[in-house]
């Protein structure tokens, strides 16, 4: 199940959906807005997506994860728009009969999402300036 939403991510229904009789483990990953990147202070982040493509990429990741691991449920949720400090910008919720598969799948899903989903964040720093984050190999994103 995938979600691209401009509302706060509502985790409880995602966890409830993952709690299936055949599952013995639910793993939840939340990416949240961090205040400090080195010495720089973030006021808030704004996320922008290419919505049709982001949904398509998230759906592809869900399909691939279900092919690789025996998952009972696989939820990927990403927020767009302004995300205040400490709130979740992304959630990965997976369940499987045994915990190693759920842990591995969740780790793979968040790593792949960060590589391929056409979603971008803009830092609004405490001093009022803004920067779009476009990481390259030689210039790692400050807020990865």
């Amino acid at each position, binding site marked *: 199940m995938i979600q691209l939403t401009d509302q706060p991510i509502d985790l409880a229904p995602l966890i409830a959906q993952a709690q299936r009789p055949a599952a013995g483990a639910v793993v939840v990953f939340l990416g949240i807005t961090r205040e400090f990147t080195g010495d720089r202070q973030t006021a808030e982040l704004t996320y922008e997506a290419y919505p049709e493509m982001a949904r398509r990429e998230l759906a592809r990741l869900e399909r691939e994860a279900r092919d690789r691991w025996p998952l009972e449920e696989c939820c990927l949720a990403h927020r767009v728009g302004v995300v205040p400090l400490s709130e979740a910008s992304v959630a990965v919720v997976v369940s499987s009969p045994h915990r190693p598969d759920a842990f591995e799948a969740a780790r793979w899903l968040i790593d792949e999402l960060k590589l*391929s989903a056409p979603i971008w964040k803009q830092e609004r720093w405490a001093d009022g300036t803004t920067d779009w984050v476009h990481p390259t190999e030689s210039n790692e994103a400050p807020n990865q």
Partner: protein
Amino acid sequence: MRVTVLLFAGAREAAGADQVDVQLPDGATYAGLAEALRHAFPPLERLATTARFAADAAYVDLSEPVDLAAEIALIPPVSGG
């Protein structure tokens, strides 16, 4: 041939538009499109060099010919999560 390219995030900000039109020779590839964007829109120089392209919301290889029937987008390095 003329192609419209959707822009997002830093590319949209750099160009000051959410889409731009560029002129391309017939049969041009996405690598050629990147080159044309760099020339036509100098503020896109850095991102057009590191970006990928999508056609109808799926990533394409730079070596493929530009699909004029598709919705083309410049996908600068992503930073979701």
